[in-house]
Each structure stands twice: as structure tokens, then as C-alpha cells.
């Protein structure tokens, strides 16, 4: 180590050091070097992803706050704003699943609170390796317990998410968490607020310890090698009780309009919060580390500056409001020392023991980090994988066997074991929680409700990153639309491998292109998100997986359409068309044992038309149930509606494709709906009006699921496969 220059040991390149020297007009000291190393890390600076993310659509009539702040904000009418964002905490979770996931929840919740919004919902898209491996079972159990342990304890309901399983995640689970908050639009704490010179920086919440020193650069930006000791101490312990106090205190300050600014302390801790606050205010700041409450004695300056101790916030307070702020903190039993103030000029001056230990331009830390245009190249051999399409294999597996194999495939099977460990009811707004295509959370005092869904399509992305991203957006929007809600805006988390590898950067660029096209087609701008690189160990990189968090709005939650068949005697329709598309399908993986082929094509205009039809039909109260077709295709979609509604069905398969293709093809832009017979004409007219092909499949009723003479199964047999799959696997 000794012969490695300090800046490199801290993860800074020689060029980066040069530009730091250029900015300072001198060599940085150790503290300054530490500050730059955390702020210019991939995690904080987005240096590899920036130029690509600029291509995403971010504008829209409803967008109040776009990317670049703690979280995006969308106008949902009646003077209310929805604040939402997704984050990843994959690297910590890979070595300490409970605390890694727990602190991930804490971090994203503080992002929402920092905007002045009350967190009202959490979603947790998760990706693990196969449950046949003991370590993956340990990871899933720990992560789920951690998300529940933290989310349940702060009183924010976890209303949705997803769990996917794939080989490459064995060494690198992907742990994403999305938080949604609500605030009066005029109370949002944005960088637009007027900030005064001389305003005070109040650090409130937990004391500062040696948590995650360099955690950002080590944990979030360095690839984890088997049992890598040095990354271990950087795991932190979450204190959800402290977080709950922090939430209530922050929101009380916002309500009383005591704040000029509010910042969470996350990655890069105090360095990030102070430099960003100053930079946004176009000012500088003076801070005194001697005032920072410490959890353990004798922290060095660079430790206090980069510590990632959890459950802390930084408020910008006009001196005239200080007493009021302190009163609120006292009421919630929180320390609230004034650690510094905003000053003219752009310098961030840090004192400790009376002497200046760091003095750098705030902007250079927060906004002038390096930007890289890294090399792009498609992975070698990717074409072969795609051309090797399983769609027209000769399939010998009996249909009922395939059907059961799909229902009990962990990707498709019920996630009840997971979501029953989450409080999905607290706050009393959950109209539809886990188990629905999208969670429906009503806005108190109105008939309106938010529709929330999260989706990632790793396997498609592996075969074609452009399609993977487009499908993820499409499925998330479809999940919102089948409930009768209108997709409004998107947050996302980009889960990728090492950006220094051209293949990964190509996958990233393709994913951004897919997300861009889809978001444009659906009119859902991207208001924020997070990029998680370096999800690889040795030669095993995860599949390129943008996870989409979709926000939708439903005008009157009484009109929402549920997944389950409400009872017998309903007509069944398939909206959309089925094509021979088994490439990258669940069927191909589970039944044929192949992960290959071209993922289903997607016509974004058709997809958008389906969404409009579904929303239109819901608003005119035509539908008795609706469920989209995704993993496992038409057969699984029908079965899920049957199980949810405890009502069977009899259908005849449309078209002349081979039965297994019609049943299990994953063609996009499809949904299964049921309705009262006297609604038949209306839906057919509506479909025609929206130019969405539809076909009558049959009727609901009885205890069995009957596909013509091809396949027949009782709901209970299907349910056993669907419900028991994950608990059985976890039992080892």
C-alpha cells in the first residue's frame, strides 16, 4: 500500500488529482483529498453515467422538480405534490443483508423527507441468485427482514415491489428501494427557496461515528471480492427509531415554515450535505467540526467529514428561526447543534481545533466533478444468443407440467412469504397493497389515489438491453393502467456491472435509449433515480437491469379495477395480440432450460393505446377485473386472476399457433379482462375506438381452469404450486 500514492488509494485518478490541484492552485491536503474522493466517486458524481442520463426525457406539464435534487416531484392537483425516488443498497446488503437493506430504506426515506414531504409508501424491487443456494436464501431472508425491520418501525407502509431470481445475482444481489411522499406543493423544500447569507447550518439527529468512512467509494464503487475484509467495517447499523424522530421533527419544521433548506446526510455525509447546500445557494460555507456531536472520541477531521453515520439531517435556518427549530428538535429529543453558516463567496471552509483543516470551492465538490465518455462496445457473441431462438423448438413437455412449472417458478410464484413481513397498512391509505398489479394508495381527504408499480426485466435486458429497458417501462405503466390509473412519471434505478468495461457501458447506453423511447411514448418523464454500477464479482456481472418505478394517478379510487375475477358468469377477453415470442421467456428458462432468443418485440404505440383503453374502460366502469400478461404469458395471467378471485374459467385458445406458444408467449401489450355480459358491446366498441385488437376467450366460473380440451386444472392445484413454491425453496 505504502508505495501507492494517497489519491489513488482513495480511488482518485492522476488526472482527477491534477484537476483538483488546478482548482485549488495547490496540492490538496489529506482532508481535502478525502472530500474530493467521496464527492467524485462514481456513486456521488455519476461521472460515467451523466452524459447518458442527459438523454432521458425529464420535462412534463406535471413535473414540479426534475432530476438533480434529493427527489423528483410531480403535481397531482389540489395543490398537492408527490415526491418519489428509487435508490439501491446492493453492495452493503451483499455482506450484511439485514443492516444493508435496512439502512437502504433509511436513506431513501430521508431523501423524500429532505424535500419536505411525508413518506407514505415504500416499494422494494429485489433480485437474488437462485434459492437452491444456501447463501442466497440467507440473503433473501436477511434483506426482507431488514426492509421490514426498518420500514415497519418508521410507520411507512411497504405496498409493493418485486422479487426476481437469476444466476448472476448469486454474488451480487440487487437491492432497490423506492419511497413515495406527499406534500403541499407550496411547501416543497426545493433549491428554489431563497437562502440568506449568514443563515445557519443545523445538524440534527444522530451523533457521528466512524460509519462507512469512505463507504461510498469503497462499498458503492468498488467491486466486492469474495470475503473482502476491508469493505466490511463500512456496513452500518440502522436505527429506525431515530429515523422516525427525524421524520417527525423535519416535517414539523417544514409545516411551521422554519427552513430555508433541508438536506439528508447520505453518501459522502457532511461533505456532500454542506457542499451541495452551499453550491445550490450559490454561496460558500464555514463549518466547525468541533461542534459535531460524536459517538466515539477522537475522530479525525476527514472522518467527521466523510462519515456516513445514519439518521442525520442538515437544515439551513435563518438566525431568527433558530430557537423555533431547536424547540422542535427538543420536543423530539434530538440534538441540534449549529455547525456553521452560509457565507458569501463559494468557499467551503472547515475548521477543527480552531484551525482550518480544509478550504475548497463548494461547487468544485458538488457540481464540477469529472465527467467521462467511456468506450462502448456490444458484448461479443451477443448476436448468437439472440439468433438462437427457442420459440419453435420441438416441445415434448406436457402442457400441464409446463403450466405447473411456471406457476411454481420463483419468478412467477406468489411473493406472499416476502410481502407479509411488511406492514402494508399503516397510515390507513392502502386501497390495494401487495398482490395487486399496482399498489393503490389514496390521498387523504380526496377520492384520488396514487398507483405505484416497480418492474425490472433483467433477462430481456441480458438478451437486448434496449428491449429490456423499454419492456420494464411498458410493464410498469401497464401495471398502473390495468388498475385504471393514468401513468404520470417515472423514477428508476439502473443496476449494472463495471462501467469501465465497454460492454457494460454499451448496455447502459442501450438501456437509456430504451427507457427514453418508452417514456416518451407514454408521456411519463423521468424525475429522478439512481445508478448502481460495479455489480459484479470476478467474471460475473449482473444482467443490465434498469428497474422502473412508475407513479400513476387515479381520479376516483372507487373506480379501480382489481386482478381477481369477481365471480362466475363474466365474459373473458384478451386485449392485445399474441405472437410467437418465447425468446427470453419464463417458459424458455423453466421448461426448455434456455435463456436465449430475441425478447418480445414492443410497439410502443400499441402499448400506449392499450393503456388508454384500460383507463377509459375503468373510468366508464366497464371492467369487472383486469390483469396484464407478463412473465408466463396468457396462461399465468388467467391463473392469477382465477386464484385472486377464487373463480375458475373456461376458455378456448385464440389463433392457430401451437398451444404452448399461445399459452406461454410473452408478447407485450396484452391484458386479460372480465366483464358483465351486457358490457360486451361497450368493450368491443372501446377497443375499436382505441384500435386495440381484442378477442373473446370464454367465461368465468367453477372451481377449475379449463383451456378448451388442451389443459385443465383446479384452482387449488394451481394455488398450491403458486403459493408453496418460495416457502418450500426457503425450507432448503
Amino acid at each position, binding site marked *: 500500500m505504502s508505495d501507492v500514492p494517497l489519491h489513488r488509494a482513495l480511488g482518485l485518478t492522476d488526472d482527477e488529482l491534477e484537476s483538483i490541484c488546478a482548482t485549488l492552485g495547490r496540492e490538496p491536503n489529506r482532508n481535502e483529498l478525502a472530500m474530493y474522493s467521496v464527492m467524485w466517486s462514481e456513486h456521488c458524481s455519476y461521472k460515467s453515467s451523466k452524459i447518458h442520463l442527459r438523454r432521458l426525457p425529464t420535462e412534463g406539464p406535471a413535473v414540479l422538480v426534475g432530476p438533480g435534487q434529493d427527489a423528483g416531484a410531480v403535481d397531482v392537483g389540489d395543490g398537492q405534490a408527490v415526491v418519489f425516488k428509487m435508490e439501491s443498497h446492493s453492495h452493503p446488503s451483499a455482506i450484511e443483508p439485514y443492516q444493508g437493506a435496512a439502512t437502504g430504506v433509511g436513506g431513501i426515506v430521508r431523501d423524500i423527507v429532505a424535500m419536505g414531504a411525508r413518506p407514505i409508501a415504500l416499494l422494494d424491487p429485489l433480485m437474488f441468485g437462485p434459492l437452491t443456494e444456501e447463501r442466497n436464501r440467507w440473503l433473501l431472508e436477511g434483506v426482507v427482514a431488514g426492509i421490514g425491520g426498518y420500514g415497519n418501525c*418508521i*410507520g411507512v407502509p411497504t405496498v409493493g415491489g418485486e422479487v426476481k431470481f437469476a444466476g448472476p445475482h448469486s454474488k451480487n444481489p440487487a437491492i432497490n428501494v423506492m419511497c413515495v411522499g406527499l406534500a403541499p406543493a407550496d411547501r416543497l423544500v426545493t433549491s428554489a427557496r431563497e437562502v440568506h447569507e449568514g443563515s445557519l447550518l443545523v445538524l440534527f439527529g444522530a451523533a457521528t461515528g466512524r460509519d462507512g468512512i469512505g463507504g461510498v467509494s469503497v462499498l458503492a464503487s468498488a467491486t466486492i471480492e469474495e470475503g473482502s475484509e476491508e469493505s466490511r467495517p463500512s456496513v452500518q447499523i440502522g436505527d429506525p*427509531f431515530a429515523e*422516525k424522530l427525524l421524520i417527525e421533527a423535519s416535517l414539523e419544521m417544514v409545516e411551521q415554515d422554519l427552513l430555508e433548506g433541508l438536506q439528508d446526510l447520505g453518501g459522502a455525509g457532511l461533505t456532500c450535505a454542506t457542499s451541495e447546500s452551499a453550491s445550490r445557494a450559490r454561496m460558500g460555507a464555514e463549518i466547525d467540526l468541533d461542534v459535531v456531536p460524536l459517538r466515539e472520541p477522537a475522530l479525525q477531521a476527514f472522518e467527521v467529514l466523510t462519515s456516513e453515520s445514519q439518521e442525520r439531517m442538515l437544515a439551513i435556518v435563518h438566525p431568527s428561526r433558530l430557537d423555533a427549530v431547536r424547540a422542535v428538535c427538543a420536543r423530539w*429529543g434530538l440534538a441540534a447543534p449549529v455547525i456553521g453558516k452560509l457565507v458569501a463567496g463559494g468557499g467551503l471552509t472547515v475548521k477543527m481545533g480552531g484551525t482550518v483543516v480544509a478550504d475548497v470551492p463548494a461547487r468544485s465538490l458538488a457540481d464540477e466533478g469529472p465527467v467521462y465518455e467511456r468506450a462502448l462496445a456490444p458484448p461479443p457473441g451477443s448476436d448468437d444468443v439472440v439468433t438462437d431462438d427457442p420459440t419453435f423448438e420441438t416441445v415434448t413437455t406436457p402442457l400441464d407440467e409446463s403450466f405447473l412449472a411456471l406457476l411454481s417458478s420463483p419468478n412467477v410464484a406468489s411473493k406472499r412469504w416476502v410481502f407479509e413481513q411488511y406492514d402494508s*397498512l399503516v397510515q*390507513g391509505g*392502502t386501497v390495494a397493497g401487495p398482490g395487486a398489479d399496482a399498489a393503490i394508495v389514496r390521498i387523504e381527504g380526496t377520492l384520488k389515489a396514487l398507483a405505484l408499480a416497480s418492474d425490472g426485466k433483467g433477462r430481456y435486458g441480458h438478451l437486448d438491453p434496449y428491449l429490456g429497458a423499454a419492456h420494464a417501462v411498458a410493464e410498469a405503466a401497464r401495471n398502473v393502467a390495468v388498475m385504471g390509473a393514468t401513468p404520470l412519471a417515472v423514477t428508476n434505478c439502473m443496476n449494472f456491472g463495471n462501467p469501465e468495461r465497454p460492454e457494460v457501458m454499451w448496455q447502459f447506453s442501450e438501456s437509456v435509449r430504451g427507457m427514453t423511447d418508452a417514456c416518451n411514448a407514454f408521456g411519463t418523464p423521468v424525475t429522478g433515480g439512481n445508478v448502481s454500477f460495479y455489480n459484479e464479482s470476478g467474471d460475473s456481472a449482473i444482467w443490465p437491469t434498469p428497474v422502473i418505478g412508475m407513479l400513476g394517478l387515479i381520479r376516483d379510487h372507487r373506480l379501480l379495477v382489481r386482478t381477481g375475477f369477481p365471480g362466475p358468469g363474466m365474459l373473458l377477453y384478451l386485449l392485445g395480440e399474441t405472437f410467437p415470442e418465447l425468446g427470453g421467456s419464463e417458459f424458455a428458462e423453466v421448461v426448455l432450460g434456455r435463456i436465449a432468443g430475441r425478447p418480445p418485440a414492443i410497439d410502443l404505440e400499441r402499448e400506449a393505446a392499450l393503456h388508454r383503453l384500460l383507463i377509459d374502460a375503468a373510468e366508464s366502469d366497464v371492467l369487472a377485473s383486469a390483469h396484464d400478461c407478463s412473465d408466463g404469458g396468457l396462461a399465468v395471467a388467467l391463473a392469477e386472476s382465477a386464484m385472486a378471485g377464487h373463480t375458475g374459467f373456461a376458455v378456448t385458445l385464440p389463433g392457430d399457433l401451437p398451444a404452448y406458444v399461445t399459452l406461454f408467449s410473452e408478447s407485450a401489450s396484452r391484458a386479460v379482462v372480465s366483464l358483465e355480459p351486457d358490457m360486451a358491446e361497450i368493450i368491443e366498441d372501446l377497443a375499436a375506438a382505441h384500435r386495440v385488437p381484442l378477442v373473446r376467450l370464454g367465461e368465468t366460473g367453477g372451481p377449475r381452469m379449463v383451456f378448451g380440451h388442451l389443459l385443465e386444472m383446479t384452482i387449488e392445484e394451481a394455488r398450491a404450486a403458486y403459493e408453496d413454491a418460495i416457502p418450500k425453496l426457503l425450507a432448503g
Partner: protein
Amino acid sequence: MSGREPRIGVVTFPGSLDDRDALRAVTFMGGEGVPLWHSEHDLHGVDAVILPGGFSYGDYLRTGAIARFAAIMDEVRTFADAGGPVVGICNGFQILCEAGLLPGALIRNASLRFICRVIDVRIETSLSPLTHTLIAGDVLSVPVKHGEGQFVASETELDRIEGEGLVVFRYCGPSGELDEVFNVNGSAGQIAGVRSEAGNVVGMMPHPEHAVDPDVGPVGGQPLFESLLSFALARV
């Protein structure tokens, strides 16, 4: 008895989570919800007190272990001793047990996992503020959401609890059948809620406050709040 609405106090401890939900439920059912603060020595003249669900002080050491020392608990105890109706829901139940106002204790679910699910409970006695308008045997659908709801007590204590008819709710099947498969957390005697000897203090793990508004769940909590409101009103 005046014509006014019964005033139901809901205590907020640091870490209480379902306090707003309890207040909302009280209002929804026609009562007046009165927020009470843990550090005050004042019940603001309410007719009944609810200790709500949540994770008071994080519940790290033992659920309810720290909350029971809060200033307001002195007032709650005095109020209870005078026969005032006191209801503990989930964390509130745990606090009342820790405070010795209710028998038994609540430990981690047998599964060791938090569980959030709508379940059925059977009414075992009408002798409680929550059930005095109901009949033993009635079955109600309400959600549970807890990680430490397994009711336990020593053999002799359990005998006494059963013997003196202190069991108010048991986990059961849709038609009231008692079977271990319905025992969501492994509680002794499938006990979901108990009352004090005097009968005016009652605690339950399930969440009636999340079962009054049909838009967001089952409505098994309605009769329980009706009962509480009429019980409280009788004291007005």
C-alpha cells in the same frame, strides 16, 4: 349523560405509528379523537384512552419496556384504577402488559417473522369496553401486523387467566373454529387479547383501527369501536 360525543384519547409515544390511524378510526365511528402526548401528566378529561400500535422507543430492548415509564402512564394507571376504559392495540397491548395493567407478556412470533395479514378473531367475553355490545362466539375480521405478538404466561398464570375469563379474543377460523393453523403467532391458548380483572382495561394484538373503513380493508373493527364509544359514553 350529556349529548356530547365520547372523547377518546390516543397517546403518542416516541415511535408510535398507528396513533393517527386510531384517531381517524374514532372520528370515522362518530367519536371525538383527542391526541395525548407521552410526556404530559394530563389526559385532558377524555372518556377513554387508547394506547396505539407502533414501535415505542424502537421496541429494541423489549416491546413496551421503555414506554411504560412515560409520564402519561401514571395518569393512565390512575384513570384505569378509577374504572376508566383503557384499550391497548398491538404495541399498546405490549405496553399495558409491561406496566402490569394486563396479565401475561408478548414475545416474538413463533415464526420469528413479522406478519401482516387479515385474520379472524373470536369474541370470548362481553366483559370488556371493546366487546360489551357483542356476544361470545362472534367472529370478526381484522388485520394483524406485528413481529412480537405471541402471548405467553406461566402455566399457573394461564390457568388463572382462563379460569377468571380474562381472555377477550382468540385467533380462529372464518366460522370461529379454533385450530392451530389459525394461530398466527403461536400464542398460548390462541389468545389474541385479554382484559384486566376489573374488566375496564383490554389489550389486543389485531388492529381494529385498520378495520373500520371499507375502502381500505375489512370492517371487523366497527363493532369494537361502537362498543368502545358506547362504553365511554355511558361514563359521560
